C-alpha cells in the first residue's frame, strides 16, 4: 500500500492552516514589551561626501530616544558587513573589497544607503526625528552606467577602475582555436536587466537584549538565521554566537533577497544592546526598493562558433557585472561560480571561455536573486543558440538535439569545471514539444497574421547547478563558509516525531515535505510529525535555504538522521525481542524479526528508549534522538525544456503569452503539488524579467522605478496558466535522488520568452524587458 502521506504524494500542506486563517506569525506581527522603533535616515544622493551630521534637532524631537551614526557603531567596535566569497582575478590576485560599514560614516554611495538610525518611542517619533537630522552632503558625480563604470570616477579609495575582480574560466586558447575553424559564428550583445526581488513581506527586525543573561535575541526575516548569527558574531562583532539567538519566524518570501546580512538588522540588534530596550524595524516598501539587494544587471557579449552541420565548437562570453555600491554577502559568487560554470548548458560545447569583470556603481548592491547567476547563464546560452539556429536555418529544437549531452555521456565533465551526474535532455524536450503542439505552430502563426498579430515561439533548454554544497568544492573556489546541512529527528516518548532542520521555509513547504519523509521512512502518521526550523536556538549550525538546496542537502541530512534512528531502533527491538540485531527488519513503522511473527511498533520502541526498563543500558544510551550533518559530493543538476509561445500586437507592442510549457527533471519528487507550485512561481519571475520588471536608475543615480507605481510586478492578468510536466533521472549521489526545484522556473523561462518575442518580430534581439514601447519600436523597424 502506498503511503498516502509519504514520498511522492501530493499531500496538502501543514503550513496552510495558519496562513489561510491569518494566524501566521511574521516578524512584524511580533512585539516586545517596551519596544522602541527604528527609522533609518537614508541618503537621497547617489554619491556624496557626508561632511557633517547635526542631530541636535532630531534629539530634541519629542519621543526620540536616540540617534546613532556610523561613527557610533565604529566606536563600539562594530565591524563591516562582509562578503563571504573571495573570487580571484585572472592574475591570481584576490578581489578588491571596499569597506562596507553598516551605517555610512563619511560618504554615501547609493540612494537609500543609511547614514543614521533614529530610535523613537513610536514610529512617528522616530520618523520625525529622522526628518529633523541635518546632514551636510557634498554631492559628487555618480557612476551609474555599467558599460562605462570602469573608466568613470573611482567610487572607493582602494578600488581602482571600480573593479572588484576580472575573472576568467575555461580555456582561452582552445576556444580561440575553435573559433578559427568555425563555419559560422553567431554573436549577440545582451543586457540582463536589473531586478528588484520584492518578496511581498518587507524585511523586518526586532532586536532584544536581556541584561540578566547577556543574551541577544534577533527576530528577523532571514532565509538563513545561522548565517545571520555567524556574521553578526564573527564579523560585525555584536556578541559571541553563544550569546546571540537569531529567529526567523514565518517569512513572507525571500527569493534570495533575505539571504544577506543587511545594515538594518545589524543596527537594530546593536541598538537593542546599547539602549537595553527592544528595537523594532519594518521596511516600508519604498525602503525595500532602495535597500534590498537587487538582482541580475549584466552587460554581455556572447559568441558561438559552429561547424557546418550545426555542431557547437566553441563559446566565448565576456560579461560586465554590476555589483552596485558595495559587495553584498554573496555578490561576488553570483556572476562567477554560479554563472560561468553553467555556460556549457545542456550541450557538448568542447571549448568555452568566460570572462567577467565585476564593477562598482552608485546603485544598490546586487546579489543573488532567484536563480542567481544561472538565469543569466541560461539567458546567454539559450539566446545565442536560438540566434545561431535562425542564422543557420536549422530548426531551433533540432539544433539543440544535435548538440545535447546524451544520456550515455554521463557523468559528463564540462569545459567549465562541473561534472553533471545524470540527465536526459532529449526526453524533456520531446515532452515539451508535444505539450506545446510545436507541429501546429505554423497554422497558429498564420491565423495570428491574418488577424494582424505576430506570433512567435521560443525555446530554452536550461541546466542549473544547485543543491548548493559541496563544501570542499565551494571553499576551494573562495566560499568562506561550509555548505552542509543538519537534520535532527527527535522521537518523542509516545512515538511522535519532531524534526529540527537548519533549512528555512519561507514558502517552500518544509513543514510538509520533511514530514512526508518521516512518514515514509518511519511510518509515523503525518499529523504526528512537527517540523521546526528557523531558530538558531533550536537547530545546530547549518546554512539555511537558497540555491534550491533544502531538500537535496537538508532532506538528505534528515535521511541520514533517520537511518541512525532506524539503526538504533533495531538494536532496541533486537534486545526487546531477544533476537540478533541483523535479524531485525524495519518497514512501514514496524520492527520485525525475520522468519518469526514477532514485531514491535515504532512507538513501542520509542517508549522503551525513554522508559528503559527492558533496555540494554550497558550497550546503548537511552533516548531516541539523532542528528546528522550532510555534505554532498557534488551539485545537483536539474534541467528542463521550456517553450513559450507569444502573440504580439504590433500596434501597441503588447506581448501576450498564449502558452507556456515547462518540462523539468528534478529527479525524484517528494510532493508533486508543491513542486508544481515552485515551478509556477519561478516562471512568473522569469516571465516578469522578460516582459515587465526593470529596476531603472536615472543618470544621476536616482531609482525611478522605486515603487509599484513604476516597477511592474507580474499580476494575475499578466500571466497565463502554465503547462507543467516532469521527467525523472534521479540524482545519483544523494539518498533521496532529488535535485531541487525552487529556481528552475526563473532560470529557464526568461530566455524562452525572449526567444519567442524575437521570433515573432523577426529580429535578432530586443532589449529586455520587452515592454510595449520596446516591442512597438522593434515592430516598426
Amino acid at each position: 500500500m502506498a503511503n498516502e502521506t509519504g514520498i511522492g504524494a501530493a499531500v496538502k500542506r501543514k503550513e496552510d492552516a495558519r496562513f489561510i486563517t491569518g494566524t501566521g506569525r511574521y516578524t512584524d506581527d511580533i512585539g516586545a514589551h517596551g519596544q522602541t522603533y527604528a527609522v533609518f535616515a537614508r541618503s537621497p544622493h547617489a554619491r556624496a561626501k557626508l561632511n557633517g551630521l547635526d542631530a541636535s534637532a532630531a534629539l530634541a524631537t519629542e519621543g526620540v530616544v536616540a540617534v546613532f551614526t556610523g561613527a557610533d557603531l565604529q566606536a563600539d567596535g562594530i565591524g563591516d558587513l562582509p562578503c563571504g566569497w573571495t573570487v580571484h582575478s585572472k592574475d591570481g590576485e584576490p578581489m578588491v573589497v571596499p569597506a562596507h560599514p553598516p551605517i555610512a560614516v563619511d560618504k554615501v554611495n547609493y540612494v537609500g544607503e543609511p547614514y543614521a538610525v533614529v530610535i523613537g518611542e513610536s514610529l512617528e517619533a522616530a520618523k520625525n526625528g529622522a526628518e529633523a537630522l541635518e546632514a551636510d552632503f557634498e554631492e559628487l558625480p555618480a557612476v551609474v552606467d555599467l558599460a562605462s563604470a570602469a573608466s568613470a570616477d573611482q567610487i572607493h579609495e582602494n578600488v581602482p577602475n571600480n573593479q572588484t575582480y576580472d575573472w576568467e574560466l575555461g580555456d582561452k586558447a582552445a576556444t580561440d582555436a575553435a573559433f578559427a575553424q568555425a563555419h559560422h559564428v553567431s554573436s549577440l550583445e545582451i543586457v540582463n536587466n536589473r531586478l528588484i526581488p520584492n518578496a511581498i513581506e518587507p524585511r523586518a527586525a526586532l532586536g532584544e537584549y536581556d541584561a540578566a543573561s547577556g543574551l541577544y535575541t534577533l527576530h528577523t526575516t532571514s532565509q538563513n538565521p545561522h548565517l545571520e548569527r555567524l556574521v553578526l558574531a564573527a564579523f560585525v562583532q555584536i556578541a559571541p554566537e553563544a550569546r546571540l539567538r537569531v529567529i526567523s519566524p514565518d517569512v513572507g518570501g525571500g527569493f534570495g533577497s533575505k539571504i544577506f546580512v543587511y545594515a538594518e538588522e545589524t543596527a537594530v540588534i546593536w541598538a537593542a544592546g546599547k539602549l537595553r530596550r527592544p528595537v523594532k524595524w519594518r521596511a516600508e516598501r519604498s525602503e525595500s526598493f532602495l535597500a534590498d539587494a537587487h538582482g541580475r544587471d549584466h552587460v554581455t557579449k556572447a559568441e558561438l562558433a559552429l561547424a557546418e552541420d550545426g555542431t557547437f565548437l566553441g563559446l566565448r562570453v565576456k560579461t560586465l557585472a554590476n555589483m552596485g555600491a558595495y559587495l553584498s554577502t554573496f555578490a561576488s559568487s553570483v556572476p562567477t561560480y554560479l554563472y560561468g560554470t553553467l555556460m556549457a548548458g545542456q550541450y557538448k560545447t568542447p571549448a568555452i571561455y568566460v570572462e567577467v569583470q565585476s564593477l562598482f556603481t552608485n546603485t544598490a548592491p546586487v546579489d543573488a536573486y532567484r536563480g542567481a547567476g544561472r538565469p543569466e547563464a541560461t539567458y546567454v546560452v539559450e539566446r545565442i543558440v536560438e540566434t545561431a539556429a535562425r542564422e543557420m536555418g536549422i530548426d531551433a529544437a533540432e539544433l539543440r538535439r544535435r548538440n545535447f549531452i546524451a544520456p550515455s555521456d554521463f557523468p559528463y565533465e564540462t569545459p567549465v569545471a562541473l561534472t553533471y551526474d545524470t540527465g536526459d535532455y532529449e526526453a524533456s524536450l520531446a515532452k515539451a514539444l508535444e505539450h506545446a503542439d510545436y507541429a501546429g505552430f505554423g497554422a497558429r502563426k498564420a491565423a495570428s497574421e491574418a488577424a494582424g498579430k505576430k506570433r512567435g515561439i521560443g525555446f530554452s533548454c536550461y541546466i542549473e547547478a544547485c543543491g548548493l554544497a559541496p563544501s570542499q568544492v565551494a571553499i576551494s573556489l573562495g566560499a568562506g563558509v561550509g555548505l552542509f546541512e543538519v537534520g535532527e529527528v527527535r522521537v518523542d516518548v509516545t512515538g511522535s516525531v519532531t524534526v529540527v532542520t537548519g533549512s528555512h521555509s519561507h514558502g517552500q513547504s518544509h513543514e510538509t515535505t520533511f514530514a512526508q519523509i518521516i512518514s515514509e521512512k518511519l511510518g509515523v502518521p503525518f499529523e504526528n510529525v512537527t517540523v521546526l526550523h528557523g531558530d538558531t536556538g533550536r537547530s545546530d549550525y547549518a546554512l539555511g535555504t537558497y540555491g534550491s538546496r533544502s531538500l537535496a542537502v537538508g532532506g538528505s541530512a534528515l535521511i541520514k538522521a533517520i537511518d541512525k534512528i532506524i539503526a538504533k531502533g533495531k538494536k532496541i527491538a533486537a534486545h526487546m525481542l531477544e533476537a540478533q540485531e541483523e535479524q531485525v527488519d524495519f518497514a512501514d513503522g514496524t520492527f520485525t524479526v525475520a522468519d518469526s511473527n514477532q514485531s514491535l511498533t515504532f512507538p513501542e520502541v520509542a517508549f522503551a528508549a525513554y522508559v528503559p526498563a527492558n533496555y540494554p543500558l550497558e550497550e546503548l544510551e537511552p533516548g531516541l534522538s539523532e542528528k546528522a550533518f550532510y555534505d554532498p559530493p557534488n551539485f545537483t543538476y536539474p534541467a528542463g525544456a521550456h517553450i513559450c509561445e507569444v502573440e504580439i500586437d504590433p500596434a501597441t507592442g503588447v506581448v501576450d503569452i498564449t502558452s507556456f510549457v515547462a518540462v523539468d527533471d528534478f529527479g525524484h519528487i517528494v510532493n508533486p503539488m508543491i513542486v508544481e507550485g515552485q515551478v509556477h512561481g519561478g516562471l512568473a519571475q522569469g516571465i516578469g524579467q522578460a516582459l515587465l520588471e526593470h529596476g531603472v536608475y536615472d543618470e544621476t543615480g536616482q531609482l525611478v522605478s522605486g515603487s509599484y507605481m513604476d516597477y511592474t510586478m507580474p499580476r494575475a492578468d499578466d500571466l497565463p496558466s502554465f503547462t507543467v510536466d516532469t521527467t525523472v533521472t534521479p540524482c545519483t549521489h544523494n539518498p533521496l535522488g532529488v535535485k531541487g526545484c525552487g529556481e528552475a522556473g526563473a532560470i529557464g523561462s526568461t530566455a524562452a520568452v525572449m526567444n519567442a518575442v524575437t521570433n515573432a518580430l523577426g529580429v535578432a534581439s530586443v532589449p529586455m524587458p520587452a515592454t510595449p514601447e520596446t516591442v512597438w519600436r522593434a515592430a516598426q523597424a
Partner: protein
Amino acid sequence: MEQSGEYTVSASRERVWEALNDPEVLERCVEGCRSMTVTGEGEFEAVVAAKVGPVKATFTAAIELQDVVAPESYRLQVGVKGGAAGFAKGSAAVQLAECSRDETRLTYHIEGSIGGKLAQIGSRLVQAAARKMAASFFERFAVDIGRSQGV
C-alpha cells in the same frame, strides 16, 4: 530632464535684464514664492510653497546667477531642498535678444534633476511638472514685465 522655451516680452532688453536680476520680480514670478532674499552678489534664497496635485511641500531654494553677460545672458543655478520630499537642482540658461527697441526675445534652456522620494515615486510626473513650473515662471515674467511697462 531638459526643456527649452521662448517668449517675446514687450520691453527693452535692458528692462528685461534688470527685471531678471530683481529679486522682487523673481519673487512675483515664482508660483508659491513666500520670500526671496538676497544672500550675496547674484545669490538669492527663496522659500517656495510648491503644490503638484496632492503633493504640497515648502522648499528652500538657493539661487545663484552664473556666467553673467549683461544684458544678454546668464545661467540661473538652482538648488532646492524639500525635506522629506527630496531635492531638486537645475539650471536655466537664459538669453535675451533685441527684437526691437521695446521687444525682447527671451529664450531659455533648462536642465534639471530631482532626487529623493519625489524621484522614487513620482517619476511619471517629473517632466510634466517641470514643464509646468518653467512655463509658469516665464509666463508670469512676461506678464509682469508687460504690466510694469504699462502694456
